[in-house]
């Protein structure tokens, strides 16, 4: 049985009821998340925890904050390889970084982070330049995600799965240069974490972070429905300096009002630049 597609099949009113309870208990509002996605993650969570009825799930959510927290963390689970989409990383390395390196202060932003892969891919890339002008800001979806990002531990399978991406990259990366072995895992060396500033905030309520030169928002909008996607994009675009760069997931497209403020830099790659001037 694939637990990601169990035989549990919640009907819309049942799912809405569960999400209302989750919001009351945790403060997380998933009502504007992509319907199929949140339905699947909820059914997956139920299956993993041997819960087969909506009423039983609601009972357990209400009786254990840990259980409710586990529900939230389960929603944001995503895992992919380091340097996913090697073409995009090559573009960042060859076209964007050389321009950023000319600046005296470079601000990078990873908003709404729930995974470690993009953050450490970028740090490994940056390490070759030994440039101390980079300041990297990370906001996590939850405190637990921030903890995981700080821990920076990758399983051996995870690193092995990344090796082909690294092979497609235009520079070589030696595991021993960036990781130390920790039991059955690899832990990122401390020196890579020196420039990181962590924060947990409600991404949709706290828009005080701005004036970034480069923002990574890869494969986040796929969580959201159209309404929340438009809102998220507006926030992300606003966080960019004029002339700054935005990296989205390979199959994420901008078709909202934010489109007026940015331009795609390379057909086929979801890499954008905020326009210096815009008509609105």
């Amino acid at each position, binding site marked *: 049985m*694939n637990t990601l597609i169990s035989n549990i099949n919640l009907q819309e009113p049942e799912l809405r009821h569960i999400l209302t309870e989750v919001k009351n208990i945790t403060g997380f509002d998933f009502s504007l998340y992509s319907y199929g996605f949140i339905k699947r993650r909820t059914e997956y969570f139920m299956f993993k925890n041997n819960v087969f009825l909506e009423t039983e799930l609601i009972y357990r959510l209400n009786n254990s904050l840990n259980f409710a927290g586990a529900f939230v963390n389960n929603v944001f689970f*995503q895992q992919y390889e380091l340097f996913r989409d*090697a073409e995009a990383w090559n573009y960042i390395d060859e076209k964007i970084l050389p321009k950023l390196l000319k600046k005296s202060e470079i601000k990078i932003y990873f908003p709404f982070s729930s995974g470690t892969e993009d953050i450490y891919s970028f740090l490994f890339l940056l390490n070759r330049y030994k440039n101390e002008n980079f300041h990297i800001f990370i906001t996590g979806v939850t405190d637990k995600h921030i903890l995981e990002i700080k821990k920076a531990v990758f399983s051996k399978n995870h690193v092995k799965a990344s090796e082909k991406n690294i092979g497609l990259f235009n520079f070589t990366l030696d595991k021993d240069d960036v990781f130390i072995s920790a039991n059955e895992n690899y832990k990122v060396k401390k020196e890579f974490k020196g420039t990181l500033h962590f924060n947990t905030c409600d991404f949709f309520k706290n828009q005080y972070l701005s004036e970034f030169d480069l923002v990574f928002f890869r494969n986040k909008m796929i969580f959201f429905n159209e309404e929340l996607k438009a809102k998220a994009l507006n926030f992300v675009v606003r966080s960019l300096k004029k002339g700054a760069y935005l990296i989205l997931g*390979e*199959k*994420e497209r901008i078709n909202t009002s934010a489109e007026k403020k940015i331009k795609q830099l390379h057909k086929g790659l979801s890499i954008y630049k905020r326009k210096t001037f815009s008509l609105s």
Partner: protein
Amino acid sequence: MNKIKYIVIGGSAGSFRVVTELLSALPKNFKYPIILVLHRLKYVKSGFVEALSTKSELTVCEPFDKDKIKDNTIYIAPANYHLCIEPNNTFSLSVEEQVNHSRPSIDITLSTAGRSLKDKTLGIVLSGANKDGAIGLKHIKDAGGYTIVQDPNDATVRTMPDAAITETNPEKVLSSQEIIDFILNLNP
């Protein structure tokens, strides 16, 4: 069967030939969208759509997240994403866990198609070397959709058709040519 408006096909090892023959046979006015989920290397992004495009008179593309499903179009699940179908007739993409060691997983696309599009769905499982697709096809059948599995004796690799037949008890078990004929006959 008259309700069918969406065709979702899953294939793995040995299915590429069937898919290219199907695409070559489809007329330019073929009405219904065809959604193809084929196991593919996640590191190889270019060339796949182009190779299939040369075989078809219809538009062949990889959908973007939240794209509307359009008639008269062949969609290919992009590498390293799960391709899901939403109840509002749009695609959504996901980077959730691999299923059956695969992303895209056939099970995920078939299952979400069945649960979202219900009896408007035709689900087809072709040749392949693992069990991906079996549960998804069952979800299509459970939702009132129509299900077809390639005859294991006709498949290059029979593991996937065998698993789908066991799990689903499909409406039809057909050879690759019969599957192509079946699809062509759907065109109004």
